[in-house]
């Protein structure tokens, strides 16, 4: 196994593009090393992207936040300004694994691993996050909801590397929230999850995005659920419509962690709770 530590994203992309064998990107390694240990992959090339300065920081500009691909969960939790603007994103990323995992895991890794139950993905999609993708010849920017195409599958071409995630400039009176259901409070995988991001105008929801996780092969944007709360002050009727739209959008699997029926029901419940939290964070009073 060749181990490379490029210092630019383009160099990383070129190495990955040229490799004829099994190539993997190493950031936090919390998924890759498990897969190597289990014998699920035998890489011929591992490209450690942690030596690339463009990927290492959380930066804030007029355009919004940019979170480098190698920024670990713990570093996101420690970033006060990020947590203030996007508490839902930070709480979602913070739910990934233990403190030991938080010291290594990254949102981009969580995204590219392609798990339907990935915690940070619904929150990123609800926020309208974008991925900056670097290939050997060109760069492109793509909405996060276009990255995962199915369990373990992404739309990235061979050699393409996500350099950073961008979050749009935060409008005043905005709030986001992420909730997941797990049988245990820590160290577990989401059975169902819901992310809500919204902006208010005089207490009325002006724009909203509702995204569910772990209830379909990929995270699901529920446009009807957002529509149900736009123009309302989150009254009971609006919340019931939101819940019904979320349940209707579910296409989950039946497994030991949750049945289809259970996941479908709980998706609505969590979406209601997440909407209330996001509303209050945006300055709304329930």
């Amino acid at each position: 196994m060749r181990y490379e530590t490029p210092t630019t994203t383009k160099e990383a992309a070129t190495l990955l593009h040229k490799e004829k064998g099994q190539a993997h990107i190493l950031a936090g390694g919390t998924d890759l090393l498990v897969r190597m240990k289990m014998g699920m992959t035998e890489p011929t090339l591992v490209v450690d992207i942690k030596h690339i300065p463009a990927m290492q920081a959380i930066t804030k500009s007029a355009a919004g936040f940019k979170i480098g691909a190698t920024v670990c969960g713990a570093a996101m939790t420690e970033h006060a300004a990020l947590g203030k603007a996007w508490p839902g994103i930070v709480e979602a990323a913070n739910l990934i694994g233990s403190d030991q995992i938080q010291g290594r895991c990254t949102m981009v890794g969580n995204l590219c691993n392609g798990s339907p139950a990935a915690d940070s993905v619904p929150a990123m999609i609800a926020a309208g996050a974008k991925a900056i993708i670097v290939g050997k010849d060109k760069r492109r920017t793509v909405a996060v909801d276009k990255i995962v195409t199915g369990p373990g599958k992404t739309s990235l071409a061979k050699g393409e590397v996500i350099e950073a995630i961008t979050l749009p400039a935060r409008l005043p009176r905005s709030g986001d929230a992420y909730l997941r259901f797990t049988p245990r409070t820590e160290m577990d995988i989401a059975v169902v999850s819901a992310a809500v991001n919204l902006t208010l105008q005089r207490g009325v929801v002006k724009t909203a995005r509702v995204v569910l996780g772990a209830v379909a092969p990929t995270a699901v944007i529920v446009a009807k659920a957002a529509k149900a709360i736009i123009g309302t002050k989150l009254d009971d009727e609006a919340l019931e419509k939101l819940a019904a739209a979320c349940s209707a959008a579910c296409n989950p699997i039946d497994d030991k962690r949750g049945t289809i029926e259970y996941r479908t029901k709980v998706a609505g419940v969590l979406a209601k709770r997440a909407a209330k939290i996001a509303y209050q964070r945006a300055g709304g009073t329930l």
Partner: protein
Amino acid sequence: MTGVLVSTTINGDAVQFACPTDETLLDSLRNRVGLTGAKEGCGTGDCGACSVTLDGRLVCACLVLGVEANGREIGTVEGLVEDGKLHPLQEKFIEHAALQCGICTPGFLVAAKTLLEKNPKPSEEQIRYALAGNLCRCTGYDKIVRAVQAAAKEMRKK
């Protein structure tokens, strides 16, 4: 052996070792550096028995490649002893019988030390959350939590 030379700092000491590129830091520490405090429980980041710090951050050594340690700082349970004196956490683990078989103990000590450095006065809930990545099949956790609370109290006196 074909291997890569790794120059790192472990518990404040400059250390060099050579390892294959696909070897975990846990195996490098145990088999090449001779530091056997970190244990392999699961090897997949679930049990925390291999907890060490990497540039001050708590990690599972089984989920880090040995080659990644190049130029970085590692802290292991062996670094808790200073001038031949046990760390307050180690003292309190003994006093509170916070261990039985002992396999998980080094990981708990490293994780608890990392917690107390960030938060010298954690609540019981904060301790339980912070140690959620460390599994113990003997104690039922309660004695461990009490030992960490006692150590925190002791450390605040200094």
